[in-house]
C-alpha cells in the first residue's frame, strides 16, 4: 500500500566496517519499498554532504537511517565526510526522526538533534562494535559473526517500518541483542562465539533512545 512517507538512507562503503553496514541495509530498503515508503538511497559515494543537505532542505523526508562512522559530535558519510555536526544549525531536522547506526553520536549530537526539534532518535552513546569473519568478506550478508550484531540493530528500522513506535523499536532491538547474548553465554554456543559476547554486551548498554518514543514514522 503506497504511503506518502519518505525515508532517507545514508550507507557509505569506503572501508570494511561501512561496507558491511552498506550490505546490511539491503533488506531494510526492500522492506521499505514493499511497505510503500518512498526510499531515497544515498549509497556509496552518494552519501556526501551536498546530497544529504539537499534532501534535508527539500523537507520531504520523514525518517533518516544513517550508517557510517561518527563520534560524540559528528555523523559522517562517504570517506568520513561530516554530514551532521553538533553546534551547527540543526533546524532543518525539526519534525524528522532518525536511527543512527554509528559510534557515540548519541552522547552529544543525538541529544542536540532532539533539543532542536527532532521527534525521536535511536542510536549509540558508546562505540558500536561487531565481529566479522574474513571468510565472508565478499558475502557480508552470510557472515555468521556479523549476523549476531547486525540483525538486532536492523530490527530498529524494520520494527518502525511495520508501523510500530520508537519505544517498540528500541525494546525489540534490545530484546534481540539480549537473546543473542544469552545464546552466546549458553552451552549451545561454541567457544569461538562465546568469546564475542563482551562486544555485544557493550552494544546493548550503548544503545539509547531519545525524544517522543510514542511516535511512529
Amino acid at each position, binding site marked *: 500500500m503506497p504511503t506518502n512517507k519518505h525515508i532517507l538512507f545514508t550507507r557509505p562503503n569506503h572501508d570494511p566496517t561501512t561496507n558491511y553496514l552498506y550490505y546490511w541495509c539491503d533488506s531494510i530498503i526492500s522492506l521499505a519499498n514493499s511497505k510503500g515508503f518512498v526510499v531515497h538511497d544515498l549509497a556509496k559515494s552518494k552519501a556526501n554532504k551536498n546530497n544529504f543537505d539537499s534532501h534535508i532542505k527539500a523537507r520531504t523526508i520523514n525518517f533518516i537511517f544513517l550508517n557510517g562512522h561518527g563520534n560524540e559530535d559528528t555523523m559522517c558519510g562517504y570517506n568520513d565526510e561530516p554530514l551532521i555536526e553538533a553546534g551547527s544549525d540543526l533546524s532543518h531536522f525539526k519534525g524528522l526522526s532518525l536511527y543512527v547506526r554509528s*559510534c557515540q553520536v548519541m552522547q552529544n549530537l543525538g541529544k542536540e538533534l532532539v533539543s532542536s526539534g527532532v521527534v525521536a532518535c535511536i542510536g549509540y552513546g558508546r*562505540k*558500536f562494535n*561487531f*565481529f566479522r569473519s574474513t571468510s565472508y568478506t565478499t558475502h557480508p550478508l552470510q557472515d555468521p559473526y556479523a549476523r549476531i550484531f547486525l540483525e538486532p540493530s536492523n530490527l530498529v528500522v524494520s520494527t518502525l517500518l511495520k508501523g510500530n513506535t520508537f519505544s517498540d523499536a528500541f525494546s525489540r532491538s534490545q530484546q534481540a541483542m*539480549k537473546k543473542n547474548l544469552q545464546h552466546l553465554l549458553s552451552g549451545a554456543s561454541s567457544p569461538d562465539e562465546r568469546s564475542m559476547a563482551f562486544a555485544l*554486551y557493550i552494544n546493548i548498554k550503548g544503545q539509547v533512545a531519545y525524544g517522543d518514543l510514542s511516535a511512529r514514522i
Partner: protein
Amino acid sequence: MQTHTSSNHTEDAVLADQLRELVLERLKRLPEDMEMSIGDMDYSKKDLLSHVTDGDTVGKEVVEMQIEFLQDLASGHIYADE
C-alpha cells in the same frame, strides 16, 4: 581520608597486569578468522592481542570492555531486565 602510598601503586600495577593477562587469555579464544570493528577501526585477533599486550589506548579500551562485561556477568547485572 585515603592515602596513596607506593604500596597502593604496586598493588594497582599488579592488579592491572592480572586483568590484562585475564583479557589476553580470553582474546586468545577468539576465532582465527575474525576481525573486530571497534568504532572506525578494524582489528584482527593478532592486532587485539598486540594492543592489549602493549597496553596502548586501543588495548586499554578492549580491557575496559572485557572487565565491564565480566564484572556485570559476575554480579548478575548482565541478566537485568530479562
